[in-house]
């Protein structure tokens, strides 16, 4: 079993915890002893953090809506269609007709890239996330 030191994905406390990995599956978690926030302690959500990762409900393939229902597709179609529809919206309605919602659950780098994409590629400042909620 391997242990990977990472940061908890739930609340703003930001505990340091280890993910326990066997055969490519996360099977458990434990707190970091010296981390300044967790100090060898996790809340009940942290102790059970591994459970959702391999849940059968996880999305594992891209989906696209055809005739009203979401069906499996490949990455190429999903990305191409999105790029096409976003470009189409810009040319018919202008850049400010696009809204982007970033995430307080994603990393700093992902948030940086998404606001850069919104501002530099979509040419709008319509980007926000749930901070106000």
């Amino acid at each position, binding site marked *: 079993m391997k242990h990977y030191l990472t940061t908890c994905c739930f609340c703003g406390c930001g505990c340091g915890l280890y993910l326990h990995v066997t055969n490519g599956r996360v099977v458990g978690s434990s707190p970091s002893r010296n981390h300044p926030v967790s100090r060898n302690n996790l809340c009940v959500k942290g102790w059970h953090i591994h459970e959702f990762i391999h849940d059968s409900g996880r999305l594992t393939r891209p989906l696209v809506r055809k005739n009203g229902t979401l069906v499996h597709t490949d990455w190429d179609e999903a990305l191409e269609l999105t790029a096409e529809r976003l470009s189409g919206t810009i040319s018919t309605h202008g850049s400010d007709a696009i809204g982007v919602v970033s995430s307080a659950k994603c990393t700093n780098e992902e948030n*940086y890239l*998404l606001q850069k994409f919104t501002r530099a590629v979509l040419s709008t400042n319509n980007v926000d996330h749930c901070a106000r909620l």
Partner: protein
Amino acid sequence: MTNSIEELRGAEVIMVIGSNTTEAHPQVARRLVAAVDNGKNLIVIDPRRTAISEFADIHLQIRPGTDIPLLNAMMRIILDENLIDDVFIEMRTENFSSLRDSLYTMDLNELIAITGVTAEAIGQAARMYARAQKGVICYCLGITQHICGTGNVESIANLAMITGNVEQSFTGVNPLRGQNNVQGACDMGALPGVFPGYQPVQDLETRKKFERAWKKSLPENLGMTLMQMTHSGRDGQIRAMFIMGENPVLSDPHASLVKETLEGLDFLAVSDIFLTETAELADVVFPAASFAEKDGTVTNSERRVQLMRRAILPIGKCRTDSDIIMELSKRMGYRMDYEDMAEVMEEIALLTPIYGGIYHDRLEKDWGLQWPCTDRNHPGTPYLHKYSFTRGKGRFVPAEHHPPDESPDSEYPFLLMTGRVYHHYHTGTMTRTSEMLEREAPRAVLEIHPDDAGSLNIRKGDMVKISSKRGSIEIEAEPTTRVMKKSLYTSFNFRETPVNILTNPAMDPVAECPEYKICAVKVEKVGHNE
């Protein structure tokens, strides 16, 4: 937070206002309990009898939405009894006279009457906090999720400044951030008015700097906020959306309008790890990698930037959100080529002064770095405002009582507050897959005072229908004295009881934070849950 979580142990007096700390921020609550164990004083201000209030020396159970009159009453008492910190006010602040004048025009007895708490208790709390050498305030969404949220926060700042309770270790004002990276998402400029590091998009020099770095001309007009985008209705200005890792259909107020808005779009793309209520409405759904399947950094409530490390490869055909954004960008004619997330962070450091010294290799060595961290030799900043505030001097902004947007009336006689439970996270997409967590907290309950329950013939376990002007849900009742008479409480973590159908989207005009904490509802018994 102006302080670090660990510092809370060292405060003499801790005042917790609008925070259900044990359930929402367990690690902060642990420090509060430890401080009480060590003989420190705890003041809790909350309309509910929360778990943390049981540890308090003083619990001010104020009427919901009366934080400003309470804080003004405390300040007035501090002023009358000359417990202010003259030196701090003189050297570090400005506009004190306007606060003082405003407090003197208020009638103390009237303020106290609005809060519903006794004058003795308020005086005791005011003296306890003002006399502390090291006083800390922690606040959370009970303060901000009001139509007068900005006034609430300014009043807290006023109280901390007149008593000089800022600028040292163990001393400050600490908003507890909810999501693991809500601090970072703000820091990174996922906001309509600012680039990374809170640099305004309308500032020409700033925009030029980013235009040079990104080699694109950039828009200068302010963008729309989340609430403007998701509540504009079927024929709003927004025609297409990309939503990454959020579930507004369950988490935003007046949820049925959010759904209607998203259904009315020409195109919606959603990236998530589960098929959420929001993803179900999408035209394209990207399967995203979870936190265990990617590298990157997140910034916690105490501004600590920390590494998330990949433990396993993305499951199935999942890809990381960064991958998805870079692919989309490439297909729209703008290449974003980064070797890895460390390289993205280098670009962030170059363009963002407060993150100027934050690089992945430095984060490897210790427990992350707390911003501001301006260059590679900067050790980070455990607590803020040591010698001066960000804007120079701290400015007093007096605030007056602002009644909630929606008050109970004869048709909707109860006041509903919403919050979170310990065992689940936000809309429950992740935590509700865990059998153990589900066993501990399988459903939301409606907390109702036993006297109110009695008069409506409602017993524990009965199903009740609660309705606001915007809609209704059915939920199990739990009579308890945790809530006051005529007020109700439930959590928004459960999709079976989507309480945000009821909540009021009226917002604070400055922060645009909706008033989740107060809406008027009626309660009817519908049956008994076996």
